[in-house]
């Protein structure tokens, strides 16, 4: 089970990455507008946003692959005017990273280890250690061309760690991986932050998963920040507005749907009951909005509905307030773009 680390411990960490007013345009299109944020050592920042929001541009700027039009950033005390020194302190897994097919995983890491100024012996030690760390030690001498996508991503992460970075940037590391591969990779990301005390900037679309491992979250939309803070802060800040719209999602066994509907239709405050998509046993309940915006009233209505279903001995497979998850926050904050 992936869980967040100790937030109290993280608060005492120094800020390892500070970005101020980063701007970038591609012709007339403003890809990034005044990006300002900071990140502490040992914390994982979920870098979120719909396609074209400016995530990859931000990462390319922060990894010195692209120059911003304006703004400045500091990594481990080194200003963005010293890109070569910054490169020594960061590890990056770029989106869609390519690998030389004719090299083995060990040769690949050995090569990059030496490029970072290690001796061949040191690089070899490090490469073996990292291959073991990412679970590739058995395939160390196999050609990378024979690796699965998940193995390549893990090798890419090992390559990003070859220089013991203080900040690790992972751009869509789970893209194209099966659920097990995604889970393993996210566990690896969590270990990087917790065991190495490295700050991790994680750009991904796996909202439900990163909710469990990210300490902080930054949501970008059309090149600007629409939400920033710890996961709980961001959810809390936006949640109220969404919850007051009052939508519940309930999953019951398909055979109990009719009975559940009968129970729910007798209850006040429920405006509409519908099925969620094609999913049998799933019900979406639209409730009457609270007039005075009182959260306590909204929570009480939810509890009453749940109690009524339980009294009717209807098995509840899932009971969810829409807006309570990071995914809902993301959809809410970026709905203009999505629409």
């Amino acid at each position, binding site marked *: 089970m992936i869980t967040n680390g100790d937030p109290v411990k993280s608060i005492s960490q120094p800020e390892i990455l500070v970005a101020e007013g980063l701007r970038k345009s591609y012709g007339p299109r403003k890809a990034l507008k005044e990006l300002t944020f900071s990140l502490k050592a040992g914390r994982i920042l979920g870098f979120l946003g719909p396609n074209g929001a400016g995530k990859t541009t931000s990462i390319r700027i922060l990894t010195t*692959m692209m120059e911003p039009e304006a703004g400045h950033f500091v990594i481990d005390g080194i200003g963005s005017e010293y890109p070569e020194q910054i490169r020594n302190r960061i590890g990056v897994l770029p989106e869609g990273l390519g690998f030389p097919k004719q090299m083995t995983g060990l040769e690949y890491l050995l090569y990059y280890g030496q*490029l970072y100024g290690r001796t061949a012996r040191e690089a*070899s030690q490090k490469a073996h*250690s990292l291959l073991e*760390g990412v679970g590739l030690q058995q395939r160390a001498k*196999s050609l990378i061309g*024979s690796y699965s996508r998940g193995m390549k991503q893990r090798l890419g992460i090992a390559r990003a760690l070859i220089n013991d970075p203080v900040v690790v940037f992972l751009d869509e590391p789970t893209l194209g991986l099966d659920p097990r591969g995604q889970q393993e990779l996210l566990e690896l990301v969590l270990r990087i932050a917790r065991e190495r005390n490295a700050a991790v900037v994680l750009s991904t679309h796996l909202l439900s998963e990163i909710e469990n491992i990210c300490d902080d979250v930054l949501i970008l939309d059309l090149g600007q920040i629409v939400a920033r803070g710890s996961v709980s802060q961001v959810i809390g800040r936006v949640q109220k507005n969404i919850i007051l719209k009052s939508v519940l999602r309930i999953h019951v066994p398909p055979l109990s749907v009719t009975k559940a509907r009968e129970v729910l239709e007798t209850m006040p405050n429920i405006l509409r009951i519908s099925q969620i998509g094609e999913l049998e046993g799933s019900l979406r309940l639209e409730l009457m909005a609270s007039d005075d915006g009182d959260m306590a009233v909204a929570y009480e209505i939810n509890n009453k509905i749940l109690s009524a279903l339980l009294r009717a001995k209807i098995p509840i497979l899932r009971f969810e307030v829409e807006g309570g998850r990071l995914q809902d926050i993301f959809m809410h904050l970026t709905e203009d773009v999505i629409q």
Partner: protein
Amino acid sequence: MSNLQNIQDVSLPKVQAADSVLPTWKLVLKRELTDLWIGGRAFTLLLIYSTLLGIISYTYAFTPNLSLVSAQEAVFEMLKNATSFSIFIGLIIGADSISGERDRSTLESLLLTPVNRRHIIVAKLLAGISPWPAAYLIAIPFLYVLAQGNAVLGPAMLWGALTGTTLVLGYTGLGMLVSFWSSTNKISYFVSLSIYALLLVPVELSGDGVDITAEILQWINPVSAVNYFLSKHLLYHRTLGEYWPWLVSSVLLAVMTVALLLNFAGSRLRLEPGLRRKIRAALRKVAGLTALFGLFAVSLTISPAYAVQSDQPQGDELKISIDTKFKQVKMGEVVKFNTDIINRGVQTSSPFIVALNVVNLQERGEVVDLEEWSPQRTQYIEALAPDESINLDWIVTTGLHGEYIVYIVLIPEPESAEDTTFPVDSSSLYLTVTPSARLNPGGVLPFVLGVPFLLLAITFVVYRRRRQQIDVGDPL
């Protein structure tokens, strides 16, 4: 999985690695060489190359008409083809060097390291020219067998190595520059191959004529200029002192591309290709045009064509010119050429005698018997009015094989037995007469078959060794 931090607990690898930090350019070079050679691209290209050279040698040996060419000419042609294909190999590798890595998404991880970008460029350039020494070594057996013991082999090998290195360096660098600017690898290949094709055209167009524009074009094109120099040096024994300007364009190309790569591409190598801003594009266009104009202007001042023009006799009165500068024929063949005589004076000239002469360059002191060479070795001309000209045809039947100078002397008739006149001479026609000898097909065949097979064997050994180094079990 183990703790990622506990690297000290991991046992040492079996390989005893040297405990020193290697310069980054060496590391990148090693990596590039591995990719090129172990990856198989270099071996594949060299295999095609050796097969091509074999086919050319075989054609020379077994085609009746071609087999009559002299050893010098066969060696020259082989050198030309070897260099030409080596340039192609360099250009292809150069064209893939940066845009290819962009397309394969492997460039970013290299750029993310603190390695100096210039070191990356240097390493890629050195790797790009690495097939050239191998290609040259492959060509040597073919040169040897075509030379048939002729002394041309030594100079051919020396000048082939020097000019080939310059050209391969220049064109590999050019390919890299194209690759640096190209947005995709396809564009890079297309542009590079177009340049290659374009630069081959003037080689075929230019002949022995004295047209200045053609000669300047030939001089500007590094490949054709080098070929011209080699033909002069290897076939007609002309010296470097006489023909060094023909090497200038190839040296310029090499120097300019390397300088641009190191100073321009080296500091600007990044993930995004090409020209980032319109203004930069415009500036570069202006710079390019200026460079081209400069090159053209320089060519006008130092090109041999210019030299030929300025070397023309500036006499005020009778002038004689010959329409052919050099010719290579087989023994017994007939050579035809003509001369123009013009009176540039303000007065009508006296009648004059025009005499043909042939000098043997190889057999010093041995007199050429003109009766055997030309039935019309002396022609008598009446007086020419001011600006009047006359055209004379000459026919020479070649006697023995060797190197000869043919020239015409115009002698104004003296007015009296006690008078004297000053003869005027034409430029010379360098005549190479080759023997009608056949190549030895039996001598060529072992090389034709042996070299590609040897290369295949080396490739096989390299791949076998590589397979022993890696796990080759089931992919997953």
